[in-house]
């Protein structure tokens, strides 16, 4: 069970601090698969990465993360280490190149496990069992990464990352580089891992709402470093409250409708710069519903059970 409150992460650049995550609060229950969606640069990847390891230029500015009621020391690289792999794990965006090219896969996994104080040998049977679930034969472990296809490598990474049954798994853009058939397989595998109890809760980071509609229990939409809306999948798809979510869904092409009949609306304008974000609601400039009060930042509040929105107009919409 994950509880994040007021998390702030900035990127240090030559031009100043980019406020990638500017006060984000939400929670993910045990057994819940939460989708995290938004356009490029909204902060979703930053959020995913920050929960396990701050990269080079990321800077923890404030906020608290609690996993299973224990505080996760994300700001302290050394203190985080015991949690990594065991409690929090990640299937990275670059999964296809995440394996050491000059080591046989099985040997690398053994060395990693041994280095983390576990016996690689004892975990081997479980490893092979899980590989089989994803359709990989055990002799994959005797091969070099270059001998596997991209999809196979990704599946290996998925198995490895979840091997120690972490409490939280972050799946970062795992379907972005795949064709539709593979996307379905991978998405299905994620759900299966949760169903078998290998992973307690999951955050699936992607910009593809369609995938989330298939696998996620709830979807959280981010915009310009802040949360816009979080609700059960059904609600998001059928009755979203935030204008941004509505416009996002409206921009999706529908099967059967041709361009000549109805043009894709899209959303005019661009997201604001995160170096010096605007005051108030960040979607203000592009929002068709914007009005006077929007210069004040709307709080991310619950308007219905399990449905949180950050919009002054949200109440009105929820009612009709």
């Amino acid at each position, binding site marked *: 069970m994950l509880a994040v409150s007021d998390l702030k992460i900035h990127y*240090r*650049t*030559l031009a100043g601090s980019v406020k990638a995550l500017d006060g984000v609060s939400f929670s993910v229950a045990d057994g819940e698969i939460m989708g995290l969606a938004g*356009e*490029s640069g909204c902060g979703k990847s930053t959020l995913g990465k920050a929960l396990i390891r701050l990269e080079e*230029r990321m800077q923890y500015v404030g906020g608290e993360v609690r996993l299973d009621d224990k505080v996760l020391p994300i700001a302290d690289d050394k203190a985080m280490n015991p949690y990594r792999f065991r409690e929090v794990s990640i299937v990275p965006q670059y999964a296809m190149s995440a394996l050491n090219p000059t080591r046989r896969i099985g040997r690398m996994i053994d060395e990693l496990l041994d280095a983390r104080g576990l016996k690689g040998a004892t975990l081997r049977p479980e490893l092979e069992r899980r590989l089989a679930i994803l359709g990989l034969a055990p002799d994959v472990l005797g091969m070099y990464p270059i001998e596997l296809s991209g999809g196979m490598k990704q599946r290996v990474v998925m198995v490895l990352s979840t091997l120690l049954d972490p409490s939280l798994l972050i799946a970062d853009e795992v379907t972005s580089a795949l064709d539709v058939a593979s996307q379905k397989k991978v998405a299905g595998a994620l759900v299966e891992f949760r169903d078998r109890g290998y992973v307690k809760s999951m955050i699936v980071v992607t*910009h*593809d*709402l*369609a995938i989330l509609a298939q696998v996620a229990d709830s979807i959280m939409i981010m915009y310009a470093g802040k949360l816009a809306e979080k609700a059960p999948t059904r609600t998001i798809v059928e009755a979203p409250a935030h204008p941004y979510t509505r*416009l*996002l869904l409206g*921009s*999706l092409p529908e099967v059967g409708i041709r361009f000549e009949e109805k043009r*894709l609306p*899209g*959303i*005019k*304008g*661009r*997201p604001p710069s995160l170096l010096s974000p605007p005051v108030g609601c960040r979607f203000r400039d592009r929002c068709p519903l914007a009005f006077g009060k929007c210069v004040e930042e709307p709080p991310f509040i619950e308007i219905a059970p399990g449905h949180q929105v950050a919009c002054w107009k949200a109440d009105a919409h929820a009612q009709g």
Partner: protein
Amino acid sequence: MTSTTSSSPAAPAAKRGRNEILYFAFRNTKLVIGAVVFLIFLLGAIFGPMFATHEPLTFDAPPGLPPSADYWFGTTLFGQDVFSQFVHGLRSSFIVGALGGVTAAVIGMLVGFFAGYRGGIIDEVLNMLTNVVLVIPTFAVLLVVAAYLSVRGLGTEAMFIGLTSWPWAARAIRAQTFSLTSRDFVGMARLNGESTFRIIFGEIAPNMSSYLVMTFILLFGGAILTAATLDFIGLGPTDSISLGLMMNYSVMNAALQLGMWWWFVPPGLAITAIVGSLYVMNVGLDEVFNPKLRAL
């Protein structure tokens, strides 16, 4: 998939890009220091001979003098003005470096571009050629060739150096060209029916211009080093003075034993400084062109 952003106009972004490069260029310590050192020697090469009061090769001075007011760098064992030799030698070093570097760069680019862009049999053949020239210890070849030419000029030396030092550049350029060729803008150009020549020099080359500049800098430095080494053995130009030749004369005439440091220290120091500054500039340029490397 959702697509909600509209694209920004391209022209202001390009201008921002150029200004951004200049901005970072002036702030990069390595680039600035390297460039300053290089410029000092370049100016010395261009204007130095005007300050030299004596001819470099005439024996009209008292031999073996340490640096003094009359002879800023002292004199050689034969009574030649070391300062004059030094600045004339600087000139020939720069000329050889430039000519040799340009020759190697041109060959390297032609081979690299065509091998990388065309692929297939052309690539195989050019690859074979590159590998053969790469493996041959070019120094040995230069040795033999230069030994047989009884009269050698600066241009000849530069040409030979250029003809033997291009393989590594060709390889590097080929690799880059490969990766650029697979990109969409090249595919578009091909569909538009543009000729190979225009695609290579109009589309591909401009997109790796920073890489080409850095490669040229390394070739330039390498040419200077190779020329100095050749001159040191006595296989350099027969009609002029050069830094390597100065070192040759000093060693051959017991300058070491006699402690005539003013004869051999300046030429070697100059080459080290010039080549070193080129290398450092290269590292700085890499940081300027590649945002990921910029230190905060």
